């Protein structure tokens, strides 16, 4: 590449401090690099370096119409694909003043909650790898597939469903799926209790994560943390409860909060959230009303000029869209605010003065997904 300068990253002013890269080829870091400045085994300073998987989703959004935007917008976080489309659909619905049918609202919630479990299982499985607990990755990835099976019966694909669209959902769920879904819920609820014993109360896992990377409540608010990171630090905030959207007001569920703010809490809050997701999915399958599932908007919906800021609670936290419409078939501006990007400021704060061996644990406990942050 022309113009690329390769700089020496060894600190010139001190022979004690050594600069090292964590990633972007690290098997756990994904397509993401953290620049580390080390003094022996201790971390002096760190600087996150995202952008290795930047795809220009926001610019792409300006070239495509409101329907064409659906499939590419879920690419940044394919393991949580329904939740990244949810606020987009809500935003366009608000601009067009769509009255989305109730059955579609329920199906949106079912898919969003299935995706939350799929995403959290992946997160916890990789957390097992990072803490040297190989059973967890096998259990996590294996059990995740039961939810992928269920979601793919509704969405038609394995991970990229393109299911939640402006005006409703793409298609109805097949007949008889509610029974299968309820069985999966019953089985999974029992299964989560087993995770407690083998993983979260396991002394080896507790030793690696308890008291590691503590984020205080004040810092979490100040740094703009969202989602599991915020709730593990004792702030009871969840967009599903704070600003109930879609069919969420119809369901009875809690927002799990933990006080300690360490890596263990950031993992365990995800387990508690999966319990609540199962509760929501069960209620949704039982109460789902009959009726149409989408509005007839046509291939090129006419969106009147306007501006909207919509947000939902994705698996990693608050997902938001700032959509500026100018009356043409394409958005004038499409800003995607992803939870991973919002949590980026937390990472260098937590990595201060920690051991090198704690870096993977702290990094992954933040539930950071590089592609989601880069967009």
């Amino acid at each position: 590449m022309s113009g690329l300068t390769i700089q020496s990253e060894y600190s010139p002013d001190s022979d004690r401090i050594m600069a090292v890269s964590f990633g972007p080829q690290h098997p756990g870091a994904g397509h993401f690099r953290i620049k580390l400045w080390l003094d022996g085994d201790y971390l002096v300073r760190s600087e996150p370096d995202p952008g290795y998987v930047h795809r220009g989703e926001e610019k792409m959004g300006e070239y495509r119409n409101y329907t064409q935007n659906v499939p590419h917008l879920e690419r940044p976080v394919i393991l949580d694909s329904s939740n990244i489309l949810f606020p987009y659909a809500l935003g366009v619905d608000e601009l067009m003043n769509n009255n989305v049918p109730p059955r579609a609202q329920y199906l949106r919630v079912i898919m969003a909650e299935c995706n939350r479990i799929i995403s959290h299982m992946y997160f916890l499985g990789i957390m097992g790898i990072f803490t040297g607990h190989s059973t967890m990755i096998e259990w996590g990835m294996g059990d995740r597939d039961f939810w992928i099976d269920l979601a793919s019966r509704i969405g038609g694909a394995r991970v990229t469903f393109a299911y939640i669209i402006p005006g409703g959902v793409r298609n109805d769920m097949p007949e008889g799926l509610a029974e299968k879904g309820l069985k999966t819920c019953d089985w999974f609820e029992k299964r989560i209790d087993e995770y407690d014993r083998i993983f979260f109360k396991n002394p080896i896992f507790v030793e690696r994560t308890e008291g590691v990377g503590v984020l205080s409540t004040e810092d979490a608010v100040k740094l703009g943390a969202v989602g599991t990171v915020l709730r593990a630090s004792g702030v009871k905030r969840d967009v599903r409860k704070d600003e109930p959207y879609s069919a969420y007001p119809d369901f009875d569920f809690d927002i799990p909060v933990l006080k300690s703010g360490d890596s263990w809490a950031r993992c365990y809050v995800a387990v508690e959230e999966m319990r609540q997701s199962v509760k929501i999915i069960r209620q949704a399958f039982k109460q789902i009303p009959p009726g149409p599932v989408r509005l007839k908007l046509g291939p090129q919906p006419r969106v009147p000029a306007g501006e909207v800021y919509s947000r939902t609670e994705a698996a990693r936290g608050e997902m938001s869209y700032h959509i500026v419409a100018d009356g043409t078939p394409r958005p004038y501006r499409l800003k995607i605010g992803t939870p991973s990007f919002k949590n980026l400021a937390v990472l260098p704060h937590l990595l201060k003065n920690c051991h090198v061996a704690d870096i993977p644990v702290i990094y992954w406990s933040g539930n950071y997904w590089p592609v989601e942050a880069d967009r």
Partner: protein
Amino acid sequence: MSQVQPAPAKPEPVRAKELASRITSKFPEVKTDWMKERRLKVTATVATMKDVCLFVRDELGFDHISTVSGVDWIAKNEFEVVYFINSLSKPGLEDFVIGVAERVPRDNPVVPTLIEVWSGAEYDERETHEMFGINFQGHPNQGHLLLPEDWNDLPPLRKDYNSPGR
């Protein structure tokens, strides 16, 4: 496809009106852009932006940064920077998001950084700088964040930058 009911009428934006009047009584130059039941967007001038944001944080209780968004209004020769803020501490404002915006001319886009107001804005401002070329004065690091380090074209989210092949 059966007939669906029309969308229900939107409720009156009571809280947005009250918040907007509190801001404009202190800062008369602030313009209210739009009000919704759970949203409010106001535009401050570049000179008073920091004071307005401190007022929004300390007096109105909006302590948690959500997103910073930029818009290129090329026909008006202006950039717009919008800070979307929500509140974690104020009861009754859980569902409310306020957007505080400022507009700068495209030929000299310099605005003050708001890291001192909301420290979480650091990476959002850096991204807005990179994507629009807006200079956030006082920002500690405005190096490349998401783009390749040898990027030497226009900032890509400007309207006069065209993606290759478009």
